[in-house]
């Protein structure tokens, strides 16, 4: 795929493609507004219709732009003083791909939700919020400037806040959405600082201008780092210089935003809690789309990262992948397993970006979106059914607890099958989409020359093995062996049945997209996938792009597959045959993993506590020191006389209290001369005169 053959269309007015994109963007907003204000009866189908139309429109954009054109529509938003800020839409391969991805998955999830969310009190509100999310997500994809991305970025966070807290009367949900928003806000702040740095240096935030497009070099590439300064000469020929660490800082700040959104270490803690939301929401937002936004952003601003930044990115990604996988091993909550698996997979993508496997990362983003979404939906349908049971018999158990499941494959064949497909894809076995993307990443990792890149490679490989293990642990625990729930309650029949069409059909669709065919003709190698070829690595002045090494290309796939299969077998022994057990529940490692490495505890005890403490101490400071500057003195004076007490209560406090108290004392002193005895008055007068005479003599 040659870069040159792509035609760049800069436009000030709306072309058909732009129009289609705008439509795809605005329709969801429209449906949100309609549902929000007009409150129609069939809100669900309204939103599905709108999102489906927007899906068609995005397909239209996709067909017209993929590998052929880049459309960039700008419109002057506002100008203050010297700077002009533009808002606009940029459609290149990446964004058009994301466009399709988001709209498709959203549509499917919406359909799924019609059954899953049936009978909810705030049914309509659910669809409204989901449409709002879709709008903001598409905004992130289409935005052409960092500021615009930031804006939609926060809106995404906001809508996810709304959706996590959908069951707002649950305290846990209320806590979870707050946590999610604030943790994301931390990332956003960093993101914003990054934006400020770039703006200071380049006076623009336009993506194409900054990072280049269609082979044209961007301002980043034009700026140079020499003897500790980051120099840039703008069009007016005046040079701007910042310390060179500012460049790294800019990169890392923006990456920090991605870290928060994509739930990377150390800001991953919000994602597991976010499972408080409906499972459908988790599948869409916290598996397929929103969390991928971080990866998307990192890919977008890729040229910004210098080697240092890339190293940080790679290590964070690899570490996160590993950590999350280990945690997923021991979780009993169905959704928790998937949540940590998501974190782990996102870690894969980030690491891939870090090591320079740009295309592989985005490829994995796409494949992962499908199969992870599918995993959640499948889990959702299981949970949904168990929920029904729970309701029917008024039992009190946690419908997400895997320890109470088992042997469901007979009762829910479709769910079982699709989940199996998804799991195989996640585990990275040949013929499944996951295999293509993941192996590209691993190959890339193994063929990095940078010192320490081997560590990353090892971590990732171990992770992929663990992945196979924990996902099949889930499969076996849920669908094989005997129904453990039945054992807890003898007399009642707790058998479940398959979910309805509107839930199974979307799952099947996703299952199809989890197979290799959707992406590549060659089931065994991803480099020939159309996505891989379609995504052009932006050229980058700071870091070299990687070459895949021969031996890696040949050996890595085989080893990983073997490992995966082995792990699956182990899992089968452990959880189906129950032949073997590893860690006792008391062992430290188990606890460590089960409690997610104690991150929440850490953060709560260290950060949150200290902030609250600080806040309280400041309040104390405010009331006792600033406010009561002389409440000390005041109290003394208070005991002296009732009138100072009057001043104390009725005039002022704080600093002014000081003056008031002093004034009061002075006044008291002076009026002390008013003894009421006329002779003393005379004496005062005379002495006053003498005083003056003496003083005037002195001066």
């Amino acid at each position, binding site marked *: 795929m040659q870069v040159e053959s792509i035609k760049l269309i800069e436009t000030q007015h709306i072309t058909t493609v732009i129009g289609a994109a705008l439509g795809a963007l605005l329709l969801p907003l429209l449906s949100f507004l309609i549902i929000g204000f007009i409150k129609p009866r069939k809100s669900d189908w309204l939103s599905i219709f709108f999102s489906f139309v927007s899906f068609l429109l995005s397909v239209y954009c996709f067909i017209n732009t993929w590998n052929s054109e880049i459309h960039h529509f700008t419109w002057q938003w506002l100008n203050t003083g010297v700077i002009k800020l533009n808002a606009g839409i940029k459609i290149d391969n990446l964004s058009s791909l994301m466009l399709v991805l988001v709209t498709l998955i959203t549509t499917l999830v919406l359909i799924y939700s019609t059954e899953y969310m049936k009978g909810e009190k705030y049914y309509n509100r659910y669809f409204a919020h989901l449409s709002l999310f879709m709008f903001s997500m598409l905004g992130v994809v289409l935005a052409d400037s960092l500021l615009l991305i930031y804006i939609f970025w926060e809106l995404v966070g906001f809508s996810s806040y709304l959706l996590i807290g959908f069951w707002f009367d649950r305290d846990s949900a209320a806590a979870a959405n707050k946590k999610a928003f604030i943790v994301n806000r931390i990332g956003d702040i960093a993101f914003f600082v990054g934006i400020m740095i770039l703006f200071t240096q380049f006076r623009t935030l336009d993506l194409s201008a900054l990072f280049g497009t269609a082979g044209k070099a961007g301002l980043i590439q034009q700026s140079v780092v020499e003897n500790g300064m980051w120099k840039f000469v703008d069009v007016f020929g005046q040079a701007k210089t910042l310390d060179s660490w500012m460049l790294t800082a800019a990169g890392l700040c923006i990456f920090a935003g991605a870290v928060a959104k994509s739930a990377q270490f150390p800001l991953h803690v919000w994602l597991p809690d976010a499972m408080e939301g409906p499972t459908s929401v988790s599948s869409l937002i916290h598996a397929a789309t929103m969390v991928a936004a971080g990866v998307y952003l990192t890919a977008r601003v890729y040229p910004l990262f210098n080697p240092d930044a890339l190293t940080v990115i790679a290590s964070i990604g690899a570490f996160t992948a590993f950590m999350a996988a280990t945690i997923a091993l021991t979780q009993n909550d169905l959704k928790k397993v998937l949540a940590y698996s998501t974190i782990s997979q996102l870690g894969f993508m980030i690491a891939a970006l870090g090591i320079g496997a740009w295309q592989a990362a985005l490829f994995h983003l796409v494949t992962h979106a499908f199969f992870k979404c599918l995993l959640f939906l499948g889990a959702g349908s299981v949970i949904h059914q168990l929920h029904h049971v729970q309701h029917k018999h008024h039992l009190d158990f946690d419908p997400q607890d895997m320890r109470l499941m088992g042997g469901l494959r007979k009762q829910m064949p479709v769910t079982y099958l699709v989940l199996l497909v998804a799991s195989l894809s996640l585990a990275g076995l040949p013929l499944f989409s996951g295999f293509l993307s993941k192996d590209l990443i691993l190959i890339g990792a193994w063929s990095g020359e940078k010192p320490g890149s081997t560590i990353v490679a090892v971590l990732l490989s171990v992770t992929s093995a663990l992945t196979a293990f924990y996902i099949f642990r889930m499969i076996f625990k849920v669908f094989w062996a005997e129904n453990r729930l039945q054992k807890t309650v003898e007399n009642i029949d707790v058998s479940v049945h398959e979910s309805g069409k509107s839930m199974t059909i979307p799952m099947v669709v996703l299952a199809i997209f989890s197979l290799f065919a959707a992406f590549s003709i060659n089931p065994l190698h991803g480099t020939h996938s159309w996505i891989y070829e379609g995504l052009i690595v932006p050229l980058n002045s700071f870091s070299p792009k990687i070459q895949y090494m021969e031996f890696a290309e040949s050996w890595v796939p085989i080893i990983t597959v073997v490992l995966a299969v082995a792990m699956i077998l182990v899992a089968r022994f452990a959880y189906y045959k129950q032949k073997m057990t590893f860690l006792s529940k008391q062992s430290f490692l188990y606890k460590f993993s089960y409690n997610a490495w104690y991150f929440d505890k850490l953060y709560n005890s260290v950060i949150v506590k200290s902030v609250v403490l600080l806040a309280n101490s400041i309040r104390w400071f405010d009331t006792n020191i600033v406010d009561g500057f002389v409440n000390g003195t005041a109290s003394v004076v208070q005991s002296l*006389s009732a*009138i100072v007490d009057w*001043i104390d209560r*009725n*005039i002022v406090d704080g600093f002014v209290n000081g003056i*008031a108290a002093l*004034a*009061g004392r*002075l*006044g*008291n002193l*002076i*009026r002390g*001369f*008013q003894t*009421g005895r*006329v002779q003393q*008055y*005379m004496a*005062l*007068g*005379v*002495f*006053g*005169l003498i*005083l*003056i*005479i003496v*003083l*005037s*003599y002195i*001066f």
Partner: protein
Amino acid sequence: MKNFVEIIQSSINDTLGSWIYLLPEISLAFIFILMIIADLFWAKRIKNLVAIIAVSGLFIVFLEVIDQFILIPPQGVVLFSAMIKLSTAAIWYKVLITISGLLVLLFSLRDFQLRNTEKGGSEYYSLVLVVTLGLNFMVMAQNLLMIYLSIEFVSVCSYILAAYLTGNKRSEESGMKYALFGAVASAVMLYGMSLLYGFTGTLDITNQAFYNGLASINLMSASVALLLTLAGLFFKISAFPMQVWVPDVYEGAPTPITAFLSVAPKVAGIALLITFIRAVNSGGSPSGSVFLASTENLLAALAIITMTIGNFSALWQTNVKRLMAYSAIGHSGFILMGVAAYSMTGQKAILFFLFVYALANIGAFLVIGYFSNVFHSEELEDYKGMGMKYPLVSVAMVIFLVSLTGLPPTAGFVGKFFIFSAAIEAYMLGGNVLLLIMVVFGVVNTVVSLFYYFKIPLNLYLRKAKTEISLDKGNLLFSVIIIVLALFTLFLGVFPNKLIGLINF
């Protein structure tokens, strides 16, 4: 013996020529006599005849005073062989005094304390007129003899007025304190004057000999003599160190008299002080006056001390009259700032400030009188919740207090503004840092004064009345005067040049 005849003739001509300029004073004297006669013969038959004569008479006098603006040449006229000088400034002060006299008379008409004295009012009214007469002479006097005479004249009558309420302990007490303290003050002043006479050989302070005499002897003895003399003036304008008597006397004296004492003698005293300072400073020598710096410093220091004493002590008062007394001291301090900034601006500023002060202060005392007519108390406690019961008067009260504090859009603000300007101007011209410090003190004192002035609105509005007793309605005459004064205060606040424009000397 030739020149003897000349002297006689000239002085006779001079005297005869001078009478016409004394029309207001003469008519005051006539009205006084008329009142006494009326009191003797017809008072029983025609109810408060005397009062009517007094008011109408004083009004006529007022017109005559106004008339004098046209009568005299711009540079003023010297009368009775330099005993007194009738200048435009003097006329302004007289106008101010007469107006306050009028207001106080009207005030007194309806004051329940005065109406309930066994003496009856007539004597009282005549005394008020006499005081007015004395004050008129004070502002014109420029001869030590004349000064002494007029001051004593005023004082002696004021003693009687203060102690007028026989059978009222406080009134008597205040009378006694006033009398004794005043007597000492005047004695000291007399001694000082005698020394001045001795040093200069003349009683006419505008006479060049006076300045030369003072300048020739050593500064120490000169300043002693001057200070002893000034003591009497400080007593009248209640400035440090002679302000001690003020709170007790103001508290005890009948409210209308307090109002009168807090304004009229102060006006006259300031006028006299300015004359005096000018006399001391008008050095014929090209090198300027030897006293200039010292008087500036002295007055600045006195201003600072006086206003500080007044305002800070006022913080503690719970009796409204006493509170106003202290505020009066504070205001003397502010006026002294103007005097210290000895300049044309200063004098205009002072005059305007005095006008404003007179309006607001008399207004405030009228309200106090109004309330004490209603519920026979001057304690802050009893003002609680009255704002809602007597809205108009209370609003007026707030306006007066705001004006006294010196906040826009009232006249008080403009007054203070001019005073500060005068001081800062003087600083810019002379570069005496003490003046700047004085201004800063003035500003701080303004804030402090808010503390205590706003105790009154606080009680009027923000607090609920203790007892819900139904009170009789207030007095109509009072309310009318009060409202008019309040409106004036506002008007002068917005259009100060309506008055300032007229003042040109």
